[in-house]
């Protein structure tokens, strides 16, 4: 019973793929931010970054394939 509810809670393979993509984007964001802390202060920089990294770049890659 518990195992079934745990399975329901765990993400599916496509959901995991999305999560890994965001983790990669986050790793780059963190690396830039630790090097240049000004990068971390602006919410709008964060929004622009995530839209580019999590939507625009994957979309371009898919189109080029």
């Amino acid at each position, binding site marked *: 019973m518990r195992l079934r509810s745990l399975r329901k809670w765990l993400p599916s393979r496509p959901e995991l793929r999305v999560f890994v993509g*965001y983790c990669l984007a986050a790793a780059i964001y*963190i690396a830039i931010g630790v090097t240049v*802390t000004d990068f971390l202060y602006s919410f709008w920089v964060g929004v622009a970054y995530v839209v580019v990294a999590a939507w625009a770049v994957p979309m371009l890659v898919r189109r080029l394939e």
Partner: protein
Amino acid sequence: MSWAAHDLEPYAFQKHLNLKVAFVPLLIGSYAPDMMTKWFVYGIHIGPWDLRATDPAQFHRGWPGFGFTHSFIYGTAIGLIIWKVFDSKLWGVSFIIGQFAHAITDTGDTVGTMLLFPWTYHFHIGAWAYAGQTGRTTDAAAYFSGLGCMWDLVWIVYGFYAWRVVTGAYFDGVIYRADAFWPWLNRWVPRGALLALYRAAFFYGTSRWIAWTVWAHVIHHYPYDLSWGGPHWVHAAHP
């Protein structure tokens, strides 16, 4: 002040409140108290001029000052204006919830907030040091060395536990349907970009928390001090 809680709280409130709430005004409300003031607390340079409050804590949280932005009356007033101007009770109420969450969260530091302004008493738990007056770099180091960053971590852990709130299915089924703003924006912006926008505050709050923690403790070795009111190596402001 909090650095990531204001980014992450709206996801939890949206999920758990038994009221119909809209995510965008909830998030705007969560940022609203600091929108006008934070830049002047830390100061900015414009050409030869340095613009900065002479008493940042007083300016940010006090009266005279802009401390009223962290009060219930301010959130209610702006919420009612939003309700009237946009003819949307949903947006007005959602803004109020977000603003109240911010004002209550900031009672956690040593300065606290004037929740019941015009009564100028500062409600404060004093769990972590308010160090905005030391400048943004020292403030970041202090915040990410005390209990404030642990409070942020609670929201991050909760966010990962309730990870379905950031899935595409949740966005389509709950967030998009609850607020006409998303279909309106969808006329020009594709669904994939909307989903990234919805996830942006979660991404920003979590990534920034990790980055500042690495910066403070791996690059610079500021000491952790998780005692009440800490870190005590920084001068904490009080009301």
